[in-house]
């Protein structure tokens, strides 16, 4: 895999919230098709890392290059770059005033200038894929959390992104709904999507990840394959974390 260029290259990135250093000199390469799972205790900077990748947060130093676009370059149109990255939030964030179908078609029509009919049929395919096509005409408030999150994934996919970012996609779900969302994510992984997933679902991490990143205090402490990470953790903090969580 290392003979191709990374699709995301993060170099020595540091990020402050006021005085608080949320990311400390983070470097990370992600290659096309790779699935990276980010683990770490609360407040360790996982969300911040994800959010700097699509520039929902600006960085203070270092560089982030996504698909050959340097995000720090003022000449780059960040909105264009974001179109190629889908993001799934812990709290779903579906457009509450739009039906499920409209949630999927809004961005393609307005941003990709897709014909509404085309956007609709693409949307229906995606809804089929996440197993929720019967709810196309419903409003988000009528859906369960698990259903909403599957729609959120489909919405992200509707822009046909090259990379998918997941920030604890199952943390806000009741236990009985976590499975249905993970299932969709596993399918997506099998289809070869490049994915960065912040999660506490160790089963998913073990099964899907090519690489596991462990963060603490704004730093990347470990970066390993799942086998090595779970069987032979090298760092003390990782061991402590795993003890708590498993």
């Amino acid at each position, binding site marked *: 895999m290392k003979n191709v260029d990374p699709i995301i290259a993060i170099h020595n990135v540091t990020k402050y919230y006021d005085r608080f250093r949320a990311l400390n000199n983070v470097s990370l390469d992600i290659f096309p098709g790779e699935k990276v799972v980010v683990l770490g205790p609360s407040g360790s900077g996982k969300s911040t890392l994800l959010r700097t990748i*699509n520039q*929902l947060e600006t960085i203070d130093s270092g560089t982030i290059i996504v698909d050959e676009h340097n995000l720090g370059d003022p000449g780059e149109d960040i*909105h*264009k770059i*974001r*179109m190629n*990255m*889908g*993001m799934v*939030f812990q*709290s*779903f*964030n*579906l*457009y*509450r*005033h739009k039906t499920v179908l409209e949630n999927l078609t*809004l*961005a393609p029509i*307005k*941003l990709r200038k897709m014909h509404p009919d085309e956007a609709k049929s693409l949307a229906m395919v995606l809804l089929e894929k996440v197993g929720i096509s019967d709810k196309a005409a419903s*409003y*988000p*408030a*009528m859906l369960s959390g698990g259903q909403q999150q599957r729609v*959120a994934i489909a*919405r*992200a996919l509707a*822009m046909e992104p090259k990379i998918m970012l997941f920030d604890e996609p199952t943390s806000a779900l009741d236990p009985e709904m976590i499975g249905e969302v993970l299932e969709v994510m596993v399918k997506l992984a099998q289809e070869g999507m490049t994915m960065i997933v912040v999660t506490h679902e160790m089963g998913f991490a073990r099964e899907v990840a090519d690489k596991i990143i462990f963060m603490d205090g704004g730093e990347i402490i470990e970066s390993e394959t799942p086998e090595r990470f779970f069987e032979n953790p090298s760092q003390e903090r990782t061991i402590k974390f795993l003890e708590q969580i498993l």
Partner: protein
Amino acid sequence: MKKIDIGDGAAIPSPDDKQLLSAWWIAFVGTIALLIALPIYDPDTYGAVLAFIPDGIQVTFEVTILSIALALIIGLITGLGRISENRIFNLLASLYVEVVRGIPLLVQLFYIYFALGRIVQVPDIVAAVIAMSFCYGAYMGEVFRAGIMSIDFGQSEAALAQGFNKAQTMRYVILPQAWRTILPPVGNEFIALLKDTSLVSILAVADILRRGREYAASSFDYFETYTIIALVYLLITLILSKLLAHMEQRLNYYEKR
């Protein structure tokens, strides 16, 4: 500290407020009854006033509707300014709100009317509309600001993450949702504005009150004239407040399970 929510002269009764609802009915039926009975009882005074003012009602509505439309536009811009990260834009909007709030509407009306007169020649009614909407624009700005801020930040984030820019996010995602929160206070402001248009009578715009004053000036029936005028305003605002209360209840379609 808890905040109390008091509309400014808003008369939209909450559906939970049973007592005010039945007060509404009594007021409504009473007003209509008086508006029918008084002219029958004394057609030469009450009846004559009532016959004198209909075109004033039309003017009142014209001024109100034009003013609210303009105020909505000003309010949207002001509201966006008040939440803008652009320092200058934000400060200008805040200053506008602060100044408008600090000066009585009547003084603003006079001021804009006379100052405007020095610059451009516009019909009275246009001057009145400009003055009213300049003033109400500031209040509308606060309504918009509060409405926009009431929308969960996650909605913006989702839109930005999809590649929408800020303006698009506002237009496609935030405003359509904020509208729902904004409409009830806008309704209140509409009623408040309708009542405040009575001030333009001082500028000789021929609204309800002006017509009444003209009638009283030649007939000297001050008491009868103002009785009818008060009843007419009351009837209008009672009906409007009922309509708005109904509209509000229908707004929540996408939150229903």
